[in-house]
């Protein structure tokens, strides 16, 4: 169409781009035109016609005598010369760059030189002698901030005779405070001071302050590049470094935001896999168990005070919501007891974290600190509310220590906290186990080798003071190593809470501080987990899948703990950490057990144990980290409670997570810290609801069991659901939300890819076109999902749950590919396929994750699997099925993360169809990769799923094509040929109309599907 139109519209000279360009660029210049009879006309070149008719304005016939200008009477308004009459036209002294639009690029500017061509002579600058002492150095040394106000007043008075009426008391605007010693006044003053403390101690406040005082560069904040090395290095390096308190806070807060999470996530993922080897972990696990026990012990105290948990969550989580609830609730009395613990925990957590990957990333520490700070609050609250905050905490701690047997402590803890969710003792033990594995994983992630060693050292300590000591010990060790982190956290918390306590914590902290330490650790762990996931993505083989789980687990744990805590009450805050830890293990198990979080605890522990075996060395560190993860979970729990009511909130958190992992943080500027926190919160929320309400909420139904089983998975599903619910309608939003959750669940890398990709697509590609595709796809998916198909998925798939999950996963993969490809695609179409392939492998890895994780190692796989699982879990609904799915879909889940939304959609029958249409075109180009993926996935996933994936992929590709679409006209011509294999052609042919692609895609579908089936 366009081509014909084009010809009609641009006939003759107009069809000759270069002629048009050169003639247009000389418009408005004087020219001499010679006609056939030799007469020369001079005029201003006005325009030209399709037959190369030339129009001269103010033209006059040039006479033989050149000197005299034309008389007015000689000038003709304008003359049109037929091309056949023109012999030569001369345009003199033309600046062909005159009308170029890029007048402000470096090349454009340098090319003009402002009319002067010769280079300017460089002259040495002579500042003169008068400057001497007044030189530039003196300026640098002058730290005064401008004029003193009094100097200004004086100057104006002396120079202009203006006298200032400024009154420093501002009596015109306010009333001076009259101080007296009355009891009332003192009360009020104390109240005001308290409020100020609470506000300044609130996570929200800190997060905001951190945002303002964030010393990181833009590059650091928003880079999508995951620097595993730096992460791994930083921890160790930073730990030993003295960090000024101010910077510590900043770092903790600022870093806390998204980036570290993602890295940690990655690491956690890695850790998880490694941790599974369990056996070692057990040995190490003792520490982990201790940690767990500690967690358990905490929980036990916490359980009694239901509020505390919530507070904790809020407190622990830097999230604003939490902060609000926690900060105020926590009364000073409770806060003090809690605070001390928190300080220790903070120290410990911070130290471990810092030592771990977190510090490496720097974000980790920051986050940790925030969290720790928050946790303290929670403690305060819990204590205040619970009434036995410190006491409870101590008890738990002591219990763990005495027993040195995690299980008992856990059981006791579980009894309170977990009661609702899990039986408790077993779970706790499981949790402890799981924790251990996790912690190892985490450690491994951070810098598994080096980090693990330190942790190990800590772990030994832990045995001594079993529950608390694990974290605290580790913390203590960490503290010793990295006082700065602790100091940061401690000072913040201490200053507001109880500095003495914090100090004490180091020594005894183990006992008392455990709760705090744990929360902190949790926070740290969360961070750690993220890094781990990253690492996993980068290099760790097995790690990826586990990491994702760990992450999710952490959240789930938190969520669970909340649930349990909710029942228990305030203790939950302290307990929440433990619960979190426990849940995490459970979650891990969950995947295996899947069927039900509570029941599964046992299996989960086993799994963990296995993992631990795999990573003996790492196990210790991992344990620590895991413990930290759990703490995070706790933090999340509060949020979960808060957020539960608000699905929307949960959705957002997922996004943040995704962003954090990518380090894309930027996308979710609102509160970097909050983001990280949010994620945890989000997870917790969803999980919590399930756990608490196990029976009830639509969200939780699958989640309840699923979440536990697939810690990561559950969280993902929930998030997805939330997203779907909240975001369901918005096209754009959906994808993002979908991706966000997936990202969160999945390794950071995925999320990063997502984000990055989307931006790239938007920017590079035609925004509109891409958007439509996305929307359309997203809508389809969403529509199906929204309609209930997503949840319905379970029904259809019941027979073949794996299929559904796989489909989702596949979609996810596809989407991932899409996302990934977008980045590359914009630049070159050919790349997309390659990128897709690369990505696909990862997805496949994720599915295989457990089995093939090593191969796929790619961080992507791990995360995605989790998501997939989650999605699957959601779909499946049934715990047992979920388990199955989880096993089957582990890899697919990885795929899902990116695509989550799409995947979910795809999973639905209707969604799949829609997908097919979209994807078919692309599929051919991708086929190889698809095939590979399919094969990998096929083992687990049903054929249907594969097809769906293919469709998804194809769909993705089309979108890419559309996005890249260059000039419509150009595209129009080329696209038609593309057909199914257009992906490649498209790459070759830049301009492809979106519409055409869509058509093609439709056309291609039939062929594509057959291919897929064949492959399958």
């Amino acid at each position, binding site marked *: 169409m366009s081509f014909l139109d084009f010809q009609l519209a641009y006939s003759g000279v107009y069809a000759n781009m270069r002629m048009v360009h050169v003639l247009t660029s000389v418009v*408005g210049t004087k020219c001499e035109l010679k006609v056939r009879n030799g007469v020369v006309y001079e005029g201003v070149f006005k325009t030209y016609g399709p037959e190369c008719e030339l129009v001269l304005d103010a033209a006059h016939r040039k006479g033989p005598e050149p000197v005299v200008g034309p008389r007015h009477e000689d000038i003709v308004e304008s003359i049109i010369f037929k091309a056949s009459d023109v012999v030569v036209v001369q345009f*003199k002294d033309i600046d062909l*760059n005159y009308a170029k639009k890029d007048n402000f690029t470096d090349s454009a500017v340098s090319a003009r030189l402002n009319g002067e061509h010769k280079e300017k002579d460089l002259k040495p600058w002579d500042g003169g002698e008068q400057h001497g002492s007044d030189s530039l150095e003196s300026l640098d040394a002058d730290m005064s901030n401008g004029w003193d106000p009094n100097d200004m007043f004086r100057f104006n008075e002396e120079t202009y005779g203006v006298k200032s009426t400024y009154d420093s008391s501002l009596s015109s605007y306010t009333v001076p405070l009259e101080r007296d010693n009355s009891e009332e006044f003192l009360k009020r003053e104390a109240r005001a001071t308290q409020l100020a403390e609470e506000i300044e101690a609130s996570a929200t406040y800190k997060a905001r302050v951190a945002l303002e005082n964030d010393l990181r560069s833009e590059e650091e904040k928003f880079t999508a590049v995951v620097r595993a090395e730096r992460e791994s290095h930083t921890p160790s390096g930073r730990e030993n470094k003295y960090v000024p308190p101010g910077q510590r806070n900043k770092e903790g807060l600022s870093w806390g935001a998204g980036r570290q999470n993602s890295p940690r996530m990655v690491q956690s993922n890695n850790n998880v896999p490694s941790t599974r080897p369990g056996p070692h972990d057990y040995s190490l696990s003792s520490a982990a168990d201790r940690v767990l026990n500690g967690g358990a012990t905490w929980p036990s105290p916490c359980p009694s005070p239901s509020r505390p948990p919530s507070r904790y969550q809020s407190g622990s989580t830097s999230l604003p919501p939490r902060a609000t609830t926690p900060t105020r609730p926590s009364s000073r009395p409770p806060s003090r007891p809690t605070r001390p613990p928190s300080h220790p925990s903070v120290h410990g957590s911070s130290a471990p974290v810092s030592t771990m990957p977190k510090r490496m990333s720097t974000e980790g520490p920051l986050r940790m600190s925030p969290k720790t700070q928050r946790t303290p609050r929670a403690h305060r609250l819990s204590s205040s509310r619970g009434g036995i905050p410190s006491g409870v905490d101590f008890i738990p701690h002591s219990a763990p220590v005495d027993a040195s047997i995690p299980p008992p402590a856990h059981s006791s803890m579980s009894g309170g906290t977990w009661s609702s969710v899990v039986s408790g003792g077993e779970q706790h033990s499981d949790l402890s186990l799981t924790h251990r594995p996790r912690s190892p994983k985490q450690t491994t992630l951070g810098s598994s080798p080096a980090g693990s060693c330190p942790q190990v050292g800590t772990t030994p300590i832990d045995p001594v003071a079993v529950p608390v000591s694990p974290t605290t010990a580790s913390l203590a060790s960490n503290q010793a190593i990295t006082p700065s982190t602790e100091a940061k956290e401690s000072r913040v918390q201490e200053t507001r809470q109880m500095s003495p306590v914090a100090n004490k914590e180091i020594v005894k902290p183990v006992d008392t501080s455990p709760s705090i330490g744990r929360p902190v650790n949790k926070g740290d762990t969360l961070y750690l987990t993220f890094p781990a996931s990253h690492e996993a993505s980068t290099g760790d083989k097995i790690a990826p899948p586990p990491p994702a789980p760990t992450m999710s687990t952490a959240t789930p744990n938190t969520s669970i703990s909340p649930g349990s805590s909710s029942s228990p009450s305030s203790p939950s805050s302290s307990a929440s950490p433990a619960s979190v830890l426990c849940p995490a293990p459970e979650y891990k198990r969950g995947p295996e057990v899947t069927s039900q979080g509570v029941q599964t605890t046992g299996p989960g522990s086993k799994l963990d144990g296995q993992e631990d075996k795999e990573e003996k060395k790492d196990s210790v560190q991992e344990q620590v980290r895991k413990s930290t993860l759990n703490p995070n979970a706790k933090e999340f729990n509060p949020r979960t409670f808060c957020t539960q009511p608000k699905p929307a909130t949960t959705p957002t958190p997922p996004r943040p997570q995704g962003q954090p992992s990518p380090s894309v943080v930027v996308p979710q500027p609102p509160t970097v810290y909050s983001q990280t926190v949010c994620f945890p919160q989000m997870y917790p929320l969803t999980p919590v609801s399930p756990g608490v309400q196990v029976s009830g909420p639509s969200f939780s139904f699958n989640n309840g069991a699923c979440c536990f089983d697939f810690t990561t998975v559950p969280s993902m599903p929930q998030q997805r659901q939330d997203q779907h619910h909240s975001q369901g309608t918005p096209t754009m939003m959906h994808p993002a939300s979908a991706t966000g959750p997936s990202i969160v669940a999945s390794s950071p890398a995925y999320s990063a890819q997502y984000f990055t990709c989307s931006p790239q697509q938007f920017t590079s590609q035609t925004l509109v076109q891409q958007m439509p595709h996305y929307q359309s796809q997203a809508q389809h998916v969403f529509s199906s999902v929204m309609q209930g198909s997503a949840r319905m998925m379970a029904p259809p798939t019941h027979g073949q749950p794996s299929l559904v999950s796989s489909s989702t996963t596949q979609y996810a993969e596809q989407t991932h590919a899409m996302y990934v490809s977008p980045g590359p695609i914009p630049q070159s179409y050919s790349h997309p396929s390659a990128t897709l392939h690369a990505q696909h492998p990862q997805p496949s890895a994720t599915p295989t994750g457990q089995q093939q994780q090593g191969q796929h190692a790619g961080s992507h796989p791990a995360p995605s699997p989790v998501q997939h699982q989650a999605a699957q879990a959601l779909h499946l609904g049934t715990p047992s099925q979920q388990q199955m799915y989880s096993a089957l879909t582990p890899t697919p889940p990885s795929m899902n993360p990116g695509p989550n939304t799409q995947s979910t959609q795809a999973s639905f029958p209707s969604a799949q169809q829609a997908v097919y249409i979209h994807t078919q075109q692309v599929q051919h180009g991708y086929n190889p990769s698809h095939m590979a993926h399919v094969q990998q996935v096929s083992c687990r996933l049903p054929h249907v799923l594969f097809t769906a994936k293919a469709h998804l992929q194809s769909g993705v590709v089309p979108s890419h094509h559309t996005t890249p679409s260059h000039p419509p006209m150009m595209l129009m011509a080329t696209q038609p040929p593309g057909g199914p294999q257009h992906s490649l052609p498209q790459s070759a042919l830049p301009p492809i109309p979106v519409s055409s692609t869509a058509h093609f895609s439709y056309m291609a579908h039939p062929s594509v599907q057959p291919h897929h089936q064949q492959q399958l």
Partner: protein
Amino acid sequence: MAAPGPGEYFSVGSHVSCLTCLGQRLQGEVVAFDYQSKMLTLKCASSSGKPNLCDVILINLAYVSDVEIINDRTETPPPLASLNVSKLATRARMEKEDKLSQAYAISAGVSVEGQQLFQTIHKTIKDCKWQEKNIVVMDDVIISPPYQVENCKGKEGSALSHVRKIVEKHFRDVESQKSLQRSQAQQTQKDSALSS
């Protein structure tokens, strides 16, 4: 396009030389060629020798002979930059107005000095026009022949003083240019004398 591409006759970037039916030798780099209209566009070095500028020649090949390609294109032509059309249109309008204004003055019998002064003032103050032989600046200051500083009349104020400054500088520059040209001419004469 169905028609043979420009590359079949003249590839963009190649150097071509030709002889017009009017006996004019033209040579330059091919910028564009349109087969249907037989129009060839060449880019040549600026006839005034300015480095950043060039001459563009549009040739109707129907009236040209002896077309020879001096050397063929070696590199693919650079992509075309988008053009600011409004800027071009503005330039065309301004050029036309300037020419018409100049022609008006010439037709009124204004001396060359007067025309030069007008051009100088016009560079600084767009709001100036011819009124018979008088230059009217901003409807406020009138400069009558012979266009010296003392010929600037109007309401005393910044406008008048400003215009006077411009006129004063204009003649000072003209004078310095003349002296420079003279010295250069003398120099060239000396050189030629020496060389000869």
